[in-house]
């Protein structure tokens, strides 16, 4: 069995599956049960400054969207940072860490954007023996209006400044958690690096309204007839998170900066994908909130089996493996020609490929009297939509034409690699 032990910026854990800073990690009771279930580490729910704790709304905190069979695909929340007294949290963190020495214990922090506040909180947590801190620059609601969370995360200069304070006043490894509510995710990552961050974690939640109640005309989740944007997470955000992780992993300025991947990790496969794109570990929240702590057992067995099947002995063998293959559109091979192919044995004759292609794509699928669906190679541009709408996995596949073969659509022979940068239709090529 592959060794799942990970060393993330010096923080060791028996597996790369951590619970993200969120309600599942807000008290000793939950965290201990998570550790009993097998989670490799936790980022304790965000602590604020000493003083009266924040207050949460007393109506719904979560909104959601669902797929078929009410599978939860996206969740949003308007919950704030911990609403428990600081000392209670600190005592519990210390107690749990002492009991669970082999697990990662990172503390999430969010205090006002001044040096004293950060100095003070870092001093207060020193005694907990936690393994590291994560700076919450991500929360998009409630705290942002008070000059914290994403209000800081959206200004790279603030990120750099605060990170520097943290590295000045603490010996602990420092992870900077990034908000996705920004145009270019590389900028805050670069700022964190300049400030001395040991790692970044991303993504935090995305500004969102999950739905509108069409009777009361209020956004959901609704509080007394009103709603506000909340932070969106869960499986629906994974593609956005993967791209942002990849951008940081491959950017020259941030290459090599450790990344903790967050955003819709639900299965071992999601985790492996984040890791292949450069994440040293992953953090999970929505999946645990949906199914409970036990899911980590599937994540552990699944990742381990996968690594065994690939001959990988440690998670380091996986981390970053896909990064070199992330490129810009202009470098994609325009001479890579594929055609859709429908496996008639697997086809259940639903005709969704036909409807999709005929109504919305390239009219490249033929339908016979007896509902046999076949691809017209002379029309197929290989868009992949038929593959995506087919209910039977692998029934429709994309077959690559060998070099020298004729593409029946263009009548041209498949040639060697060539991309847009040298294509005759490219105005900048023509100009030369």
């Amino acid at each position, binding site marked *: 069995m592959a060794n799942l032990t990970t060393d993330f910026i010096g923080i060791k854990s028996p597996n790369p599956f951590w619970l993200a800073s969120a309600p599942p990690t807000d008290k000793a009771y939950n965290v201990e049960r998570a550790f009993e279930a097998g989670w490799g580490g936790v980022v304790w729910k965000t602590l604020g400054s000493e003083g009266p704790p924040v207050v949460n709304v007393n109506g719904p905190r979560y909104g959601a969207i669902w797929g*078929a*069979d*009410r599978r939860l695909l996206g969740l949003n929340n308007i919950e704030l940072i911990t609403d428990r007294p600081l000392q209670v949290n600190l005592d519990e963190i210390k107690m749990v860490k002492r009991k669970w020495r082999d697990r990662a214990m990172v503390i999430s922090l969010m205090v006002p954007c001044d040096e004293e506040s950060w100095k003070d909180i870092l001093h207060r947590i020193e005694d907990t023996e936690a393994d590291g801190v994560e700076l919450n620059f991500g929360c998009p609601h409630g705290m942002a209006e008070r000059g914290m969370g994403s209000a800081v995360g959206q200004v790279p200069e603030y990120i750099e400044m605060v990170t520097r304070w943290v590295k000045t006043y603490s010996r602990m490894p420092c992870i900077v958690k990034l908000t996705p509510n920004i145009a270019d995710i590389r900028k805050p990552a670069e700022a964190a690096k300049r400030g001395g961050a040991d790692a970044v974690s991303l993504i935090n939640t995305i500004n969102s309204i999950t739905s509108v109640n069409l009777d009361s005309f209020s956004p959901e989740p609704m509080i007394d007839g009103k709603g506000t944007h909340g932070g969106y997470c869960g499986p629906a955000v994974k593609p956005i998170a993967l791209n942002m992780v990849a951008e940081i992993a491959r950017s020259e300025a941030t290459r090599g900066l450790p990344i903790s991947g967050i955003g819709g990790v639900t299965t071992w496969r999601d985790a492996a994908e984040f890791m292949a794109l450069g994440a040293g570990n992953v953090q999970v929240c929505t999946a645990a909130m949906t199914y409970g702590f036990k899911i980590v057992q599937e994540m552990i067995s699944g990742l381990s089996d996968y690594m065994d099947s690939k001959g990988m002995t440690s998670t380091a063998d996986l981390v970053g493996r896909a990064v070199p293959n992330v490129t810009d559109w202009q470098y994609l091979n325009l001479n890579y020609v594929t055609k859709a192919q429908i496996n008639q044995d697997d086809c*259940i*004759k*639903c*005709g*969704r490929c*036909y*409807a999709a292609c005929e109504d919305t794509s390239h009219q490249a699928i033929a*339908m016979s009297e007896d*509902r046999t669906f076949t691809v017209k190679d002379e029309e197929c541009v290989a868009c992949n939509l038929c593959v995506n709408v087919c*209910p*039977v996995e692998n029934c429709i596949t994309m077959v690559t034409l060998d070099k020298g073969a004729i593409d029946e659509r263009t009548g041209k022979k498949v040639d060697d690699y060539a991309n847009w940068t040298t294509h005759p239709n490219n105005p900048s090529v023509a100009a030369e």
Partner: protein
Amino acid sequence: MPNSPFTPGVVQARLSDGELAQNFADISPMLDAHEARVAADRCYFCHDAPCITACPTDIDIPLFIRQIATGTPDAAAKTILSQNIMGGMCARVCPTEVLCEGACVREMAEGKPVEIGRLQRFATDTLMDKGIHPFTRAKATGKKVAVVGAGPAGLSCAHRAAMLGHDVTVYEARAKAGGLNEYGIAAYKAADDFAAREVDWLLKIGGISIHYGKALGADMTLAQLEAEYDAVFLGIGLGGVNALGLAGADLGGVQNAVDFIEGLRQTDKAQIAIGRDVVVIGGGMTAVDAAVQSRLLGAQNVTMVYRGPREKMSASEYEQEHATSAGVRIIYNAAPKAIHGSGHVTGVEFTFAGGDDFTIPADQVFLAIGQTLQGAPILLDGKKLKTHAGKVWAGGDCAAGGQDLTVTAVAEGRDAALAIHAKLMG
């Protein structure tokens, strides 16, 4: 001592009132909203969907299921009922396993089709329980249409004709409307007096008057109707029953299955006398309905005997399984030879296809060997929707060519109304 399944002879109340009530309760109750949502989620919204092709009334099934999935069951019901005004009954009695659900691509994919029949019932019951009739009549045409027979074909024709603006008069030989829906369907398939409720709901369209106790031939002639109306639709069903043609068929305890089934629908179950050893001769839905209901009434041994092989049996695989799971024994390839007894039946002798003769003890025998047209006007000679002098149409079981299903009758009645409309307004 009260009667039990073991009491000899043909007796009432073999089971307690509670057991009878349970046995004859709705066989497949309406899905609740959650169940419907889960079931609807499974529909793939196929292109040119095979289920539509398989439906004799061409209901746009993927559309109505999507309407259920998106929380608009009333719209779903309208989609169904606009094609099939008896969508409520068809949802209960259609052999969906050989129609829409048999064609469902998920049957091919996983052997588990989308539950189209139950979803249809969810939609139609939801609407009908609210008392909503979603159709209105077009401007009056001044044309008069006579419909003979208030069964599925006749009522379907009447509704569509009324909707198109014609004034419809229905002549029904019996005391109630509904035809086989009322008199010929197993009680547990249309529980809670559904057939009558559906007729009441259907008539809300207006413009339809029904005269009961009026039979073609006895109370009026086709010529009279032709003279009085602009168009005539015949949906008179199959009133006659095929004769067995064997000695002993007149013994006590020997009865036509259709009469037994009708009695069950119209009488308190505890009043129905049932044998301890029941033999049903036949292999169709009527035979299954009679056999299963015999068991549900408390008969100890119920044997259904069909002369042909299993694959030729007209009761579907599903119906056969339903029968065997109710405790009915099915014997294939055995032809009836004689009915024994003196005064009252004691057993039925059969010849097995291989040549062996055997006798099954019986104190009650139901004959379900097919229905036949009774006193048919000459024009019903084998083609459905045949017109006579451009004025008479026919549909349903009495018109050959269909599958003798409720849904086929509804389709033929509807199409006849459209044809009549085209003719009258053309």
